């Protein structure tokens, strides 16, 4: 009972702390994104300029008196100000409205963007792009993660071997991002060899049957997955290899070796087990990192994911969409951090939730 209370208290405190961080962080984002309210002036000027140019430079408005056109500009600009809330001051209420709409996960309505199917609901805008992002980045991140772990374990058992030295030598390749390799992959496999597509989600026009669609999707994923993998694999392998090597030289591992335990057994019970919290943390962060996509990589591969959507929102100063994307990430991160606290306790006997000071 006592430990349960301790766990409850601990949970409440942590949730409160994470919650406060989230609220403060989000409000800061709202303020920074809107340049402390100064963005309103920029947006008003932009709206007015666009409306005036559209009206005055439209040849079909020739013959309509200048005063009438000016009134038309004023009225249309005012309507747009009203639609975007620019007729009200940014502080305090409008900024708080942004914050509460996002935090409540209602997400609200986009100011400029529409979803691919034509909805202005932020939830829909994000949800329509989510599958494409998840399938690409989920696949590549998981592939990258498990490949890196496996390969790192393999290398940690062959410290100083030719394979190990080669991998260490290749690690700097990861200093270039995935999209950089993507450009070369496109040039080689699409432009020159013409064996793989240039980009996009599926072939054009998209196949009508689900199996054909899935096959086409897989084909279109090859290059971006490869680009992400090449861009990050070597550094990841190097990092994990070093990590495992540190654990491999612990006294209890040496003792196990001296006892004659098998290499796999040692790896599973004496290396993997104590490193599990770190591995799980890394995995969880990789998984939630999938949420935001990758702006440049999606652009290079013409991939209709959340990254490009986010960029479009930034370019259009679409606060609800930007905030929606970030708040969801914030919740995912906060939830993950809380969850990890419990997972650590489950997988590592040295850690106890709410255990207090030793």
């Amino acid at each position, binding site marked *: 009972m006592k430990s349960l209370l301790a766990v409850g208290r601990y949970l409440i405190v942590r949730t409160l702390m994470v919650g406060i961080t989230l609220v403060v962080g989000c409000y800061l984002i709202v303020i920074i994104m809107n340049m402390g309210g100064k963005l309103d002036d920029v947006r008003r000027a932009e709206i007015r300029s666009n409306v005036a140019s559209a009206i005055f*430079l439209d040849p079909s408005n020739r013959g309509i008196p200048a005063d009438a056109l000016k009134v*038309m500009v004023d009225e249309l600009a005012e309507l747009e100000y009203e639609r975007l809330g620019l007729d009200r001051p940014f502080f305090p209420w409008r900024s708080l409205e942004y914050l509460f709409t996002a935090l409540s996960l209602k997400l609200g309505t986009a100011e400029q963007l529409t979803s691919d199917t*034509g909805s202005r609901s932020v939830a829909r805008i994000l949800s329509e792009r989510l599958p494409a992002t998840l399938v690409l980045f989920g696949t590549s991140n998981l592939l990258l993660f498990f490949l890196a772990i496996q390969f790192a374990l393999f290398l940690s058992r062959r410290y100083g071997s030719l394979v190990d030295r080669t991998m260490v030598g290749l690690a700097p390749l990861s200093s270039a991002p995935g999209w950089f390799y993507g450009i070369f992959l496109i040039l080689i496999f699409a432009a020159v060899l013409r064996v793989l597509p240039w980009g996009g989600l599926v072939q054009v026009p998209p196949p009508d049957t689900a199996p054909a669609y899935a096959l086409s999707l897989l084909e279109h994923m090859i290059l971006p997955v490869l680009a992400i993998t090449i861009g990050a694999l070597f550094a990841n392998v190097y990092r994990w290899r070093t990590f495992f090597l540190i654990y491999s030289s612990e006294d209890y591992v040496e003792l196990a070796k001296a006892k004659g335990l098998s290499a796999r057994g040692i790896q599973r019970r004496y290396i993997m087990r104590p490193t599990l919290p770190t591995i799980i943390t890394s995995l969880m962060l990789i998984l939630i990192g999938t949420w935001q996509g990758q702006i440049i990589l999606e652009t290079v591969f013409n991939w209709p994911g959340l990254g490009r959507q986010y960029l479009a929102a930034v370019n259009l100063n679409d606060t609800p969409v930007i905030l929606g994307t970030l708040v969801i990430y914030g919740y995912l991160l906060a939830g993950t951090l809380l969850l990890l606290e419990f997972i650590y306790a489950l997988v590592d006997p040295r850690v106890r939730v709410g255990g207090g000071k030793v």
Partner: protein
Amino acid sequence: MQLDRRGMKWVAVLLVALSVAAGALARTGAWLDEVVISEENNLGAAVARVAAGDSDVFIFALTDAALFAQVRSNPDLGYVRNVGSTSELTLNPVGPTFPGTGALNPFSVPRIREALNYLVDRDYVANEIMGGLALPKYTCLNGPFTDASVRYPDIYNLIVEAYANDPAKAEAIFNEEMPKLGATKVDGKWMYGGKPVNLIFLIRVEDERKRMGDYVAGLLEDLGFETTRLYRTGAESSPIWMNGDPAAGQWNVYTGGWVTTAIARDQGTNFAYYYTKIGRSDPLWQVYENDPAYLAVAEKLWNNDFNSMAERRDLFEDAMWGAMKESYRVWMVDRTAFSPFVKNFRVAADVAGGIYGSQAWGWTAHFVDAAGKRQEGGKLRVLVNSMLSNPWNAIAGSNWVYDMFPIRGTGEQAWVRDTRDGLVWPLVFERAEVTAQTGLPIASDPRHTWCTLKFETEIKVPADAWYDFDAKTQKWITVGEAFPNGTTAKTKSVIYYPASLYDKPLHDGTKVSIADIVLAMIVPIDRAKPDSKIYDESAVPGYKSFMKVHKGYRIAQRSPLILEVYSDSYQLDAELTAVNGGVVAGSALFPYYSQGPAFWHTLTLGILAEEKKLAAFGATKAGKLGVPYTSYIAGPSLDILRAMMLECLSTGYRPYEPTMAEFLSLSEAVSRWTLLENFYKKVGHFWVASGPFYLEKAYPIEKVVVLKRFADYKLPSEQFMFLLDPLKP
């Protein structure tokens, strides 16, 4: 001999029969069978894809000089160029010192502003900075458009000659004028009040204007000025130069740019728009102080206040020279853009709008064989840089230029705009008669025999013409009711349609009816009425402007249809006057609204959805109501429209029945709803039009649009092929 003659006769008969048969078999509508449009947002990759044969054309208007060099040097590629955007230097004329900072502003002096014209080397800007993708520009007229290139090239050329690059002359003027302002040159630097004269450049960073700004700043530094270069995006700079107080002294020079996506045949308003308070109500425009003579000329041109083209020429001459003296703007270049394609592709591209802005692409796009012979059929693979960013609905849907490309392929306006000179050719009507008030400067083009022009001292509007629409009673307010003492108009256009108009097939198997045209007159007006069930305040400003010049519609004859349009609006070209009189958020001559085609039955679905507050045509209203922004091609509104269709099908619904019942029979209504349901079942959308292509499917997530040739289209494919020929003088 007799037999021979008879034989000849039979041969002749046979030839006639064969030619008739060939005519019957001649291709109609589009040359292409299919057009697949997809998105490629990476410009370099798009060009590479066309070069690699992965796609046939990239319709984006590219301005990248390196890509242009690639395309030009590739024998497998062709390209079209288009003009329309311009770059200039906007000058802040407040002064001699800025009240906000006390700093000296040399550009408060007209002669110094004018001197900049001599200082800048426009050829250098066009060829070196813009990489050859630009033409030197000296006046506010677009060099390739009608006024500068056709009507007054002589005046234009004299200005080019007079304001040719002459840095020495520019320096001499600066040296003459600066001391008058109290500035002195110390060690080659201009000083004022013991400080260097600093010029603040607001330089746009998104395109070549960054280098252009640096270039001009460098020239002024060479003349002894200190410069501060503020590099800003459009969004960052407009609150400063356009909406900020020019007297605050935050800038002296701004690297401006303007875009025109259609050929402007009358640029008479430019002199007031760019140089006088009349142009805009923004703070910068309000500090313009003009020479009274210039202002008078600019005002006359703005208001078309002249009685003949000869008088207009005189005004233009004064205005063109006068604008150079004012020089609130120093024009630098007419930008040219290009769109690459595979070498066996041909299309009528618009001088200003390129391929994406061509209204005639649907009829003219085709492939040729190695010998250059036109091919029938084929699939065109088009790349655009961005597409399907907003819903498609004809009233207030997407206005994105790359969405309008497929929309234009599926729809038809009453006319087709000539891609070469901006005039129009009739498409769904046969001919037009324009009557103008005596003294109006309107002329007709002798090549356009479909349009006749005559002048009358007074044009009375018939009392039974429709003037306005009563949203409450859903009935027309006639001219007789609105103007009990009668009214007159400046122009009257009589549009004559062919008898075959009502045989014109739509994509869903229905045919054009007069109800489509009447509804096209009603809806744009009704939406602007607070009593309307589909009232949308965003429609009000356009309606109010329209009513300033609108005088009446009249259906003079129902079959074949003859439509009369009375208006106070007119254009210099009789052909444009004929078709533009009935324009309010689209056209009353044929159901093509602001953002595309819509016939009465499909439009009714959106109207009903909006009446029931389930969806809305406009983004603003949709946002306010918290309902979907109506899309006819995809998304959540399709289910709503489908529900409306089923309701209409079960009741044989007719919109605006108090008026429309006269033009729309119950049987026609039932037939349309039935065929629309079949169409929806087949293709899964409600985008019904009458153009040479129909929308097979739109894939909004994958960003792909598939258009297919409309086999029932009746007009011959040859009809607009002349647009590919160069324009004869």
